């Protein structure tokens, strides 16, 4: 952030307006790219940034519902969740995680370039972010396709091959769970242990959450890529500089948020029960 940003941060109108004109050196009635209802670039910038942060709070609450459902059903049906998790491709998931983290780096570089007003650098980093984001989406699509082929899409055709049930040292993983995870009396009284039918239904629940959570994440990625594409033209035209880089910064924050969501999704969905 430029030093002026701090000196005028959310200043009172009179003061801020004065700074606005000195920052700018513009003698007209209203400086360019400063909306009519703002008095200074600082005020505009701070408003945009707070707006994006508040928006991200709503996103957290939005994803929060799915995470809550995940927590509930995973604690209810741990075997099914482990079984489901073993159907996912950890390698692809790991590659995707790496791709996404790299894209966050390039996004951060784009924001920095915007603050410095380097048009070509912004565009270059944006393109890099778009490429990485698209690679992520491509890998995700491949994974979805595999699940389709394997009849793991929740709905009528769902079928989990029973011999896919995970084993550990020759025993079903489920029996290795510490007692108390599912029911307290698990050790002594043989609970009506989850039969194959139940495992089918409960694994379907896992896959619904898998598709729901990664699908919603992918929708956010697609929107993000769209926003980044839209940003390229204005950045090449030199629209962004120390005063005015709200769009790049706001979309950057959004991109990092979507990245962080994946950082939570990856272990929850891919790595369950792989610690043994």
């Amino acid at each position, binding site marked *: 952030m430029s030093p002026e940003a701090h000196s005028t941060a*959310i*200043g*009172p*109108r*009179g*003061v801020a307006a004065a700074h606005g004109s000195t920052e700018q050196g513009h003698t007209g009635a209203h400086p360019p790219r400063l*909306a*009519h*209802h703002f*008095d200074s670039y600082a*005020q505009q910038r*701070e*408003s945009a940034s*707070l*707006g994006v942060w*508040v*928006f991200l*709070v*709503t*996103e*957290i*609450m*939005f*994803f*929060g*519902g*799915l995470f*809550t*459902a995940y927590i*509930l*059903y995973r604690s*209810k*049906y741990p075997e*099914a969740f482990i079984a489901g998790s073993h159907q996912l491709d950890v390698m692809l998931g790991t590659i995707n995680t790496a791709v996404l983290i790299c894209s966050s780096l390039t996004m951060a570089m784009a924001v920095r370039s915007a603050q410095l007003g380097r048009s070509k650098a912004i565009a270059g980093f944006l393109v890099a972010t778009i490429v990485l984001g698209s690679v992520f989406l491509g890998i995700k699509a491949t994974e979805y396709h595999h699940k389709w082929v394997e009849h793991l899409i*929740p*709905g009528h055709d769902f079928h989990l091959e029973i011999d896919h049930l995970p084993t550990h040292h020759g025993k079903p993983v489920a029996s290795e769970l510490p007692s108390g995870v599912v029911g307290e009396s698990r050790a002594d009284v043989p609970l009506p242990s989850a039969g194959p039918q*139940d495992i089918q*239904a*409960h694994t*379907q*629940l896992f896959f*619904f*959450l898998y598709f*729901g959570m990664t699908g919603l994440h992918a929708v956010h990625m697609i929107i993000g890529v769209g926003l980044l594409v839209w940003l390229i033209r204005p950045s090449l035209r030199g629209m962004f500089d120390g005063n005015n880089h709200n769009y790049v910064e706001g979309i950057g924050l959004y991109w990092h948020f979507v990245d962080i969501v994946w950082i939570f999704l990856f272990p929850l969905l891919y790595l369950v029960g792989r610690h043994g």
Partner: protein
Amino acid sequence: MTAHSDFPAHSAFPEPIEEAPEPYEHYLNHKYGLASWLLTRDHKRIAILYLISVSFFFLLGGAMAVIIRLELTTPEGDLVQADIYNRLFTMHGIMMIFFFLIPSIPSVLGNFLIPIMIGAKDLAFPKINLLSWYIYAIGGLFTFYALLTGGVDTGWTFYAPLSTGYTNTPVVLVALGIFITGFSSILTGLNFIVTIHRMRAPGMTWFRLPLFVWSHYATSVIMILGTPVIAITILLLGAERIFGVGIFDPKLGGDPVLFQHFFWFYSHPAVYIMILPAMGVVSELIAAFTRKPVFGYHFVAFASIAIAVLGFFVWAHHMFVAGISVYAAAIFSALSMLVAIPSAVKVFNWTTTLYKGSISWDTPMLYALGFIGLFTIGGLTGVMLATLGIDIHVHDTYFVVAHFHYIMVGGAIMGYMGGLHYWWPKITGKLYPKFWSKVGALTIFLGFNVTFFPQFILGYLGMPRRYHAYPNEFQVLNVMSSAGATVLGLGYLIPAVYFIWSMRYGKDASANPWGAIGLEWETTSPPPVENFDKPPVVTWGAYEYHESRVQPSLPPPKQEVMRVT
């Protein structure tokens, strides 16, 4: 009488701005034509768009209430049968809650007034503000279309598995309408929060903010934290209904109570989205018509925040009989009662403000006083319902119906009407007839009580809600309730008539017809496009009804512009 002089002149208070020479340019006449309204980014015009659309849904929801009350005048199902009746009360609830009560005060009065009250030219994001209205309109169209095709019959609560597996009505369509409209609420809340943080005029510190702004800040916090949860809930509901995935279906391992948790996590705080803005309105009215600062300003301000925060920890009191554990129920019971504390702080502070105030009985004040009484009844019966034993006894009876109508109609709509009457001269620049407005206020108050008080008794006697037929012994009270509803309906028509009348025939309002204090009264009525001719600098606190503001010979001391953070 309809004369200008009807409004108290309160000559003791000089009007800070000279009457603008006629004709002057203001937000209503600087542009004409449909496009100038539909493409406007002016928060004042968007408020008017909202006013028109929420009134439409209020009318629709009201019409359904009329049929419901008509059906309930006799014990048998003679006007409509169960199937239609279910759709009626469901659509009544959906229209009134999601399309009228939640947007009413924030999107109409809040939208219009918050920027003016804090001395800004507009909300922080004018385009997003317009977008929120379009989103609201699209969601409304979906729901309206669903209504035309027969509506849903699940109750406004959409409980699974009835809504996901059994009903044949277009649940997904209506749910989509609510999903879409939710984003309009989120965007409004986001806009208010950023505006209140970043757009205040020089000298407008947090503790100089009118309490109306404080209560909208608290409301906005609920909007941005709660609404996304109902959005994801609706997505899950839709997925369950369309794909049969079993997230709420016990047959497939799902948990129907999870739906109730999700639903009430939003829908209980949503009650505070409806009531907090009304409380903000009442704080303004009480101060203006007692000519006193609101007693315990800081407490009233923080009570709004406290209600918003506590409101998120009480949702399961709707689920005491849904099979949650007794421990959970006991904790939620206790937490629910905690909400009574900040609510009582507000009520006590308003009544203390009345003490030794110079009270004037103008129409807005009648609504404010009505609010205090009715909200108190609604709130205290809420504490009764938070008590486990009583709740189990009266669960799903008319006692609950009466309770939440006291909060929503007696509270939120009274506040909305009071606010509309208080700021109407500012919004339209016109005065409405004083006599008829008082007749309207009293009719509404009377009609409301006759409608809903008998329902407390009915519920306590055991009449369940959501049935179109009932045993004969409940008829007398039901007829009373229906008779009251007729009066109430007429009462709402009176303001509708004179408000519309006043736009054409009303006398022009002065900048400050009530002699009240607040930035909105320092600008012309109606305000200019950018709200103030000169950007205001604030050197006084909210509600400073005292000498230094009264005597022009003693101008308020020139104060250093305070840093706004």
